[in-house]
Every structure is written in structure tokens, then in C-alpha cells.
């Protein structure tokens, strides 16, 4: 477990560096497209919370999208 933790930590750190390092600059007036509702990471929170709940109760693995939410008798 500890080994896999370390592995993930190094992957994440490497990811952070490469992402912030290589991303070319996007000027503010070019961000209009990213402001579109369909370009948000979670365009439909109601639906996505339902789907995540269903998959969580039918699969051994759940979560990863955020923290919060309660347990249920479904799993």
C-alpha cells in the first residue's frame, strides 16, 4: 500500500509540473469558449450525481470526482 501511495504521489507531482510548465498561455479574451456551459467539467450536476451514485452502488469502486456525500445501504 505504502509503495503504491508513493508511486501515485510522484505521478501527481510530475503531472502538476508538466501541466503548469508546458501549457501555453491563453489570453483572457480567448477564454470565451471555455466559459461555455458545455465546457465545464460537470455540465449537469444533477444527472452526474445520480450516475455516480448508481455506479458506486453497483461497482466495487466509487468516487474520485470530489469529496462529500454520505454513505447508503446500497453498498
Amino acid at each position: 500500500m505504502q509503495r503504491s501511495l508513493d508511486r501515485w504521489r510522484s505521478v501527481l507531482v510530475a503531472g502538476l509540473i508538466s501541466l503548469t510548465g508546458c501549457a501555453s498561455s491563453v489570453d483572457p479574451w480567448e477564454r470565451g469558449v471555455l466559459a461555455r456551459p458545455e465546457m465545464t467539467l460537470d455540465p449537469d450536476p444533477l444527472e452526474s450525481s445520480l450516475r455516480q451514485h448508481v455506479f458506486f452502488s453497483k461497482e466495487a469502486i466509487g468516487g474520485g470526482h470530489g469529496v462529500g456525500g454520505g454513505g447508503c445501504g446500497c453498498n
Partner: protein
Amino acid sequence: MALAEAAVAVIEHSEPLLEARLDPEEPIGPQAPFPHPTLAALTSAAFALPGLATPTQAATPEPRQWDLGYFHYQEHGERMRVESLKQRLVLPLGDDWDLTFNGVRDTISGASPIYDLPEIRCQDGRVITPPVLSVSGASGPLPTNAGAPPERPPLNGDCRIGSVRQVLLEDTFQDTRTLGDLRLNHYRGDLVLGLGAGVSNEKDYDSAFISLDLRKTFNDGLSTLTAGYSLASDTLSPLNQPDLTEDKTAHQFLLGLTQVLSRHELIQLNLTLSDDLGYLSDPYKGIYVLATNQAVAERRPDRRQQWNLLARYVRYVPSFRAALHLDYRYSTSDWGIEAHTLEASWIQPLGAGWSLTPRIRYYSQSEAEFYRPYLETLPDSGDYSSDYRLAGFGAWSWGLKLAQALTDEIQFELGAEWYDRQSRYALQGHSDSAFSDYGFAIYGLSLRWRF
């Protein structure tokens, strides 16, 4: 000096959202990663002027919005069905706060698998279903052949386990789950602090939870770092064991980075650790023991640690004026389960306020170390479960959603998704659990109101 009063002056602001020519999708010229020295010099000199530095484009409270949805979950056959009514209300409170209230009411009915029964096939053609003398838990199905002596041939070369079938807990119970949670966000410059709390109640399961998260935007608004923690404290009081009350505690830790990659792309990486402690077994699940012909209660470890690495990528596709969402999640848990989840969706505006979103998802998990469809003999120690959700399997699901924005304020959505679980779809090596294969469908109808 240079004043072209008439050159740029007409501004329109009430264009319909989906008019084709509204899309600024002409490819922009070469984007140098570093600005030309002249541009850099002028820009920095401009920002040195008093009062010209723009206040950092801080995150701001969400606009008022109310979502209401009805979802129907139906497993194939006469198995479980859930009617779910959900609502989500977002209210900005002043300039620096917003509040989100979620409410869910699920009505659950139908049968669900409780253990797996092996069948013995012999070379002489006999097919013997072993008897079930007792089932742990009061509300399980009545044992078959009650009182009859356990009679079965030894499992040797002549007779072996031929197949396995699921035994369902019949449609005897109906439960409702009611969930309410509040989330308060505080916006302070490039920082957002989120606090959440909620409760969820069922006849046999109560959960209370709190969460805390912090988001910081930096790198000229191109990067957001998120850290979060949540705690859930659950109490189980299974209906089939009236004297039993058990507790469970779940911690979740999250570290995430969202990065704008270009004017058309962004990516998010989330690393989460879930640490569950306490009673993690399912009180309704049993496992069949061949030696004694009994279905006994399953037993899982009292701790589970699970890591998820989720990568979400969103890209705008100018030629279709569509948004592509790609998600990949790698998960590993100390129960021996490793899982891959891949999901893609395509949000396609169709004009006149309509949009269509096809979606496909693939999931694959390896089996838990202690997964067994049944046991030969009951071990003195260790864990065992025949829960089909701990088996190795894969699942494909695909769905379609149609949305219609009637006005800027009101939008309707109609969606369906079909899920097909198959033991053979799994990527990882695992014992066969094809007898647990099934599928379900989700139908949804929802309304969004920005007011």
C-alpha cells in the same frame, strides 16, 4: 492621434445562443508560448499605470439555479427498481457566498441477489442442487429441504460443481432513502472555501457527513488547485438482524489540479484517497458453504483504503461546435480490486435550443481477494464474500440525452442510459462470475430553471 471613431462601434448583445455565426471559431493565428518582446514590454508598462491592473478574475458565486429531476432505475428481470426524485437549488448570497441545497428521495423495491448456490453435475447425468439448511438473517428466503439430511455425493472425479446460480432476496421489502445536504461556498479573491454537511436516512441505514474543500486559482487564472476532506459517519441497523447495530466511518481526501491547456481545452486531475473503517460487510449478503449446506453471513475486512486517480479532459471541437468530454479513472483498493473506468460524451448543439449528448462508458474491475462464489468449508478466520459487486467483471454502458432550452432561463432534459455487466468484459484475470451478469437502464427527465 489615431482616432477612428466610426471603425468599431456597433455592439449587439441579445443574440440567440445557438446561432451558427456566433461561434468565434476561426482558428487563431500562431500562439507563441511567450509573447513578442514588444507586446510584453507594452503590456507590463500598461499594467504599471495606476489602476489598470485588472482585479484578478476571481471565482464568483454561482448564479441562481434550480434543477429538478425524476429518474427511474430498473434492473433487468424482476430485480431492483428505484424511483429517484432529486432537486438541486443554488442561491448566491451577496457577493462572496453561495449556497447549494441538494435533496434526494429514492424509493427502492425489487429483488436483489443474496448468495450464490452451486449445482453439482455428475458423470452419470445426475444434477444435484445442494440443499440450503439455513440462511443467516431473519428475512432471507426460507431454506429449501428444511429438515432433510444433507445428501450429496462427494466432489471427486465423478461429480463436480457444474454451475452456479444466484439466489435472490425476493421482492419483500421496500425502502426509501431521503438525503439532504447543504453546501456553502465562500469566495475570496482567488480562493474558494467550501463547507458541506448533510444527512441520509433509510430504514436500516443512517449517514451524516461533513466536507471541507479549498480551491485556489493561480497562474493568471489558468490553474486551479483543489484540496478537500470529507467525513461520513454511518450507522447500520439491518432489518434482518434486529439486535445488530453497527458503525462505519469514511474519510475522503482529495487533491486536484484543473489546468486550461489552450483556448479550447482543459484538463483536471484528481487524486482521492478513501479510508473506510468499521463494519463494511453487507448485512443482507450471505455466502453458501457446501460442507454444511448453509448460507452464512459474509465477512469483509473492517478497513478499506481506496485510491482513485481521475483525469478529465474537455475539448471544444469548432467544426462541430461541440464539446467532447473524456474521463479516465484508475482505481486501486487494498481489497485487491483494481479498476479502470473510461467515459466519453459528446455534447452536440443542434440549433434552436436543442442539444444531443451521446455517451459511452466502459468499466472493468478485478475481483476482491476474498471474493468466492461459495465456500467448500467455512474457514476459521479471514474474509469471504460472494457479493457479485466484488467479483471481477466489466461493464459497457451507453446513453443518450436530449436537451431543449426553451428560453435562456428554462431547459428540459430527457435521458436514457443502458448498462450491461458481463464477467467476460473484464480486462483483469478473475474467476468466472457470468451467473451474476445482468443489466439495468436509467431513464431521466429533468428541468433546469435559472431565475
